């Protein structure tokens, strides 16, 4: 290919701004305004890539999204991007690209010999060949030989952002039709218009026009648009998805045209667009001609040659030949000649061509070959010769050889394919138009209109006569998908093997499955299939178009939701104090809570032992703020709660508190907690920590969907209150020291009672319940005062060596006591009878949510997994939750360990579990399997510590 350092006048590159760049380790020079592809061509690089399977040399085919050959690895290290289309990469200073799938480089690829193996590597080759002994024994080899770019191995240092935008009219594509649509829509000042285009600058095909009138029109249109306040202009933005309700997704390349630098602006921005009306002005893609060895470098689309000439000012050839089946390529050839550039010949498969075109071509000194096919090409590293044969009158066979032409570039045009991907994604129907052999939009499903060439309005007559493949010669080297090495013979093979559905043929041959998703190959593959099957093209149909239209960076989908922001996290009111105390935080649901507070060099087990012994022997303090606090108001509140809990709420007196279990309608336990009756029509529900929101939703669902007659209000006040659990034999002594009006003496405030008053001058609620088995006060103050209360209690407890304790220590303490923790000791099958609640339920007269399900056969199965204590026979034995309890013959699982800790108070392991039929097997010996080994254990009642339960009354 010719090296064109000088540019033609009128080119849209700035020759006063040269830019140096690297390709495959060699320095080159281009100009501002170049794409990487135009810069590579300007430097005479004809081979810029290698194909996926056969390592055939590949040259630039197109100018934009349709490019399937010029894929490069852009930059290196963390900034590396595989499969970048050289046509879409704007040149920047210092750009560094390398060719892909080649060794040592794309010019001299040692695996290029693969190309000779084409006939041994047909479609389905992989499926048929690598079956023995299995695919995995070959995978490593395939992965080495076949492939494209390499994914970067380190984290992406650049940022991404997602943003939503609403508009009345969204115009996609800023060529002539799109600009016209945007101008007319934005004439109404109240209409919010969004104009989007994927190129560096607006103009679409106008940018490649050699006509001054076109350029003037473009400048005028842009000036008008820039002046309007009601239009938003998005350049470098590709609309990738068109979804229901006119929602679209688009990727804006905000700063990646600046190269591998980290700037404040994100690299890319993913726009989610909510559109009133959509105008698709997405243009059309030119199709390759299908003929033997049509994949040789130096063979490109006729429109691409025109754009490289008129937009980028390149002189690519001294002897270019045009090969076509329609009129548009003639006009490109004539425009080239008009610009004073040589055109050797036009080869056309049609026997008759518009007289005026013929006349002009003859006048320009162009050789003309009508009714002629190119039947072969030759040339190393670029096309040097094409062979011509006359096509017989029937169109299905060849006549004699005409001649061969020595050339240095072949520009082809097999017709035009409207870019209807987005239209198809929107649900719109397509119809086949015979006159241009293309699919055009028919019935729209959403509020969308398609204009210009995307709608098949080509503006100039094409007079196309399709020739899907060259007749009478082997189809083996007639390429359809240049990237994935799919040829016409592969489609024919698929059809012979009875793959007649277009979707199956696509997957069997991989035609159109390449990075460009068949933008140039699909329609030709369809034509070959239709011809092979002897059916009309519309009957064969198209494959379904799915998002994304163009590959989208995964980082853009993530946006800022990475690392620490991967999911929302909730912080306790006294978080900073826990941090200062050296807490180890863990996520419990969304809550970030102290798990334990290790001293210097202290292990988790030692910390848990120290903290739990402090609670057993002295006093400990736990931040219990996530404890659910739902308030239920209303004249029907009591009736409602009686339907919600398995427990009898009708008999709960004002000021009283009661443990309650909640089921779903399937009878499965979903929550437990303490219900407090604050007034006849006002209740407080302490739900499981972290479960408050789910239970709030559960209650509102029943009130809104089922029991609309009940007058009940539910108010989630969980985070209004900081709740601290003060627990241990010295808890009362500590609490007494704080100023307040609640009598916390043993006589005045018994276990399972609730008080409201003031503490430290703030409103305060105290519940005496116990999840540790020791005397406990669950003290709540408005959350903003939580840190002060924490500090006050720690100070007051100093003389008793008060220890802050974390959630893991709480879990140890309650496991010692055999107290159930919903979600740990219950699973998605646990019913209340499995927890020993059957007798209590029987006493309750009224129905409640899930009750009827308990009486289904599944609820009566004697082998249900039931809640039990588990004691290891070896006093020094250890077990972890999740270990299996084996059936008596050891062949299967009959339950599992749900909670297990080493108890420092008892000096041995305490464990809880769900075990088949456990309630009738108390004392029975079992075998536990965990961590690869078995050990003997026995079933016991839950609650190994303080079995009499006296400590909590102390």
């Amino acid at each position, binding site marked *: 290919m010719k090296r064109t350092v000088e540019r033609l006048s009128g080119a849209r590159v700035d020759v006063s701004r040269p830019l140096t760049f690297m390709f495959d380790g060699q320095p080159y020079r281009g100009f501002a305004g170049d794409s990487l592809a135009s810069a590579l061509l300007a430097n005479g690089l004809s081979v810029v890539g290698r194909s996926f399977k056969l390592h055939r040399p590949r040259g630039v085919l197109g100018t934009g999204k349709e490019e399937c050959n010029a894929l490069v690895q852009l930059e290196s290290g963390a900034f590396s991007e595989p499969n970048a289309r050289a046509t879409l990469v704007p040149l920047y200073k210092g750009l560094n690209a390398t060719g892909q799938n080649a060794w040592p480089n794309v010019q001299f690829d040692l695996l290029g010999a693969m190309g000779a193996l084409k006939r041994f590597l047909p479609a389905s080759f992989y499926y048929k060949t690598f079956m023995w002994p299995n695919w995995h024994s070959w995978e490593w080899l395939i992965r080495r030989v076949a492939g494209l770019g390499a994914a970067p191995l380190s984290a992406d240092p650049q940022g991404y952002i997602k943003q939503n935008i609403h508009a009345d009219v969204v115009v996609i594509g800023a060529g002539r039709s799109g600009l016209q649509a945007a101008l007319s829509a934005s004439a109404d000042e109240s209409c919010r218009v969004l104009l989007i285009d994927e190129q560096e600058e607006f103009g679409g095909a106008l940018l490649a026009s050699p006509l001054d009138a076109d350029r003037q029109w473009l400048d005028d249109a842009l000036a008008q648009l820039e002046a309007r306040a009601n239009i938003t202009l998005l350049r470098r933005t590709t609309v990738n998805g068109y979804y229901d309700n006119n929602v679209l997704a688009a990727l804006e390349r905000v700063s990646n045209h600046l190269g591998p630098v980290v700037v404040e602006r994100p690299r890319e921005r993913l726009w989610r667009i909510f559109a009133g009306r959509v105008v698709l002005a997405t243009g059309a893609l030119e199709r390759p001609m299908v003929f033997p060895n049509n994949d040789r470098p130096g063979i490109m689309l006729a429109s691409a040659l025109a754009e490289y000439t008129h937009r980028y000012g390149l002189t690519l050839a001294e002897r270019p030949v045009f090969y076509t089946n329609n009129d548009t390529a003639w006009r490109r050839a004539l425009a080239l000649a008009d610009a004073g550039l040589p055109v050797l010949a036009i080869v056309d498969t049609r026997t008759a061509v518009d007289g005026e075109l013929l006349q002009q071509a003859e006048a320009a000194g162009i050789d003309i070959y009508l009714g002629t096919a190119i039947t072969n090409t030759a040339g190393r590293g670029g096309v040097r010769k094409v062979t011509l044969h006359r096509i017989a009158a029937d169109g299905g066979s060849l006549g004699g050889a005409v001649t061969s032409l020595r050339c240095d570039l072949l520009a082809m045009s097999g017709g035009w394919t409207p870019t209807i991907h987005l239209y198809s994604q929107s649900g719109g129907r397509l119809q086949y138009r015979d006159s241009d052999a293309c699919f055009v939009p028919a019935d729209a499903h959403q509020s969308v209109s398609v204009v210009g060439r995307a709608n098949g309005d080509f503006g100039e007559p094409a007079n196309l006569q399709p020739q899907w493949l060259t007749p009478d010669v082997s189809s083996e080297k007639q390429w359809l998908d240049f990237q994935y090495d799919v040829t016409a013979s592969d489609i024919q093979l698929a059809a012979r093997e009875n793959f007649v559905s277009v979707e199956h043929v696509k997957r069997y041959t991989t035609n159109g499955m390449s990075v460009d998703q068949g933008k140039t190959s699909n329609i030709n593959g369809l034509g070959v299939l239709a011809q092979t099957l002897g059916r009309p093209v519309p009957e064969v149909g198209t494959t379904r178009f799915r998002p994304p239209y163009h590959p989208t960076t995964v980082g853009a989908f993530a946006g800022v939701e990475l690392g620490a922001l991967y999911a929302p996290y909730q912080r306790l*009111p006294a978080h900073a104090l826990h941090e200062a105390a050296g807490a180890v935080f863990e996520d419990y649901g969304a809550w970030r809570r102290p798990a334990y507070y290790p001293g210097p060099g202290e292990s988790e087990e030692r910390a848990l032992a120290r903290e739990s012994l402090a609670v057993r022997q002295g006093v400990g303090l736990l931040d219990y703020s996530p404890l659910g606090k739902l308030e239920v108001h209303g004249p029907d509140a009591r009736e409602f709660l009686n339907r919600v809990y398995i427990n009898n709420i009708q008999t709960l007196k004002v000021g009283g508190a009661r443990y309650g279990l909640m089921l779903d309608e399937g009878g499965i336990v979903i929550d437990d907690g303490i219900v407090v009756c604050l007034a006849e029509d006002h209740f407080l529900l302490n739900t499981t920590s972290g479960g408050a929101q789910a239970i709030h939703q559960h209650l509102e669902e029943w009130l809104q969907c089922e029991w609309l007659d009940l007058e009940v209000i539910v108010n989630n006040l969980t985070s209004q209150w900081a709740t601290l659990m003060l627990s241990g034999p010295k808890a009362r002594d500590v609490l007494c020291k704080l100023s307040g009006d609640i009598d916390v003496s043993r006589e005045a405030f018994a276990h399972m009672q609730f008080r409201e008053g003031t503490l430290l001058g703030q409103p305060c609620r105290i519940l005496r319940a116990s999840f540790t088995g020791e005397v406990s006060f669950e003290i709540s103050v408005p959350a903003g005062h939580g840190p002060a209360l924490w500090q006050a209690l720690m100070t007051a407890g100093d003389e008793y060596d008060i220890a802050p304790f974390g959630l893991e220590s709480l879990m140890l303490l309650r496991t010692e006591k055999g107290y159930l923790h919903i979600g740990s000791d219950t699973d998605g099958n646990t019913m209340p009878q499995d927890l020993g609640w059957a007798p209590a339920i029987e006493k309750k007269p009224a129905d409640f949510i899930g009750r009827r399900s308990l009486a289904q056969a599944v609820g009566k199965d004697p082998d249900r997994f039931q809640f039990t204590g588990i004691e290891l026979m070896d006093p020094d034995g250890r077990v972890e939750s999740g270990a299996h309890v084996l059936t008596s013959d050891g062949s299967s699982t009959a339950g599992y360990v749900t909670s297990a800790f080493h108890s420092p108070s008892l000096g041995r392991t305490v464990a809880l579990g769900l075990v088949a039929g456990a309630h009738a097997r108390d004392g029975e010996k079992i075998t536990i399997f965990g961590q690869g080994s078995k050990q003997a254990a026995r079933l016991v009642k839950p609650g190994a510590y303080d079995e009499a339960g006296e400590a909590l009354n102390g």
Partner: protein
Amino acid sequence: MDNAARESVLAGHELARERFSVRENTSLGLIRLQAFHRKAGNVDAVARQLGLPLPRPCQSARDEDMQLFWSAPGEWILASPAGSEREIAQLLQSRLDNSALAVTSVVTDSRVTLELGGAAVRDVLARGSTLDFHPSQFGAGRCVTTRFAGIPAMLTYPEGGEGFLLFADRSLGHYLLDWFAAASADCVAE
């Protein structure tokens, strides 16, 4: 022992960029008003008994130094100067007591209130929620609860205000500040 000191959610942490800023607002005391709203006429009766201009869905209103925000059917957030909310809640409850048409609860501590400002504020908001933040669609007096940065949040552009107010669960205050810092990284001087 002395009265317990009060700590704000963000304890002074804030975000100040050239074109976007986040600051915690600690000047508001918040009351949640919930009416038994299903019976026809109840909501009107509540408004009458309280003598308050209860706003309609997705609206806010103002009554002397109280701002009223619609948050759900039959549910409003009333914002008054911090420190006054307990007294006001009691006063309102006393006006309601005979009818049992609604209940009030002080919720100041359950919420974090963020003031969002700067030239790019609407752009940053559009990164957290799918709502339309164009001034023609989200002007003064609008108040919505939406999915913002993955969490439920109430957003309002109060009458006579100078930016947006965002209300969310207090436990999410630091998450929101971190999220805003990441999502506004480009809101530096142009």
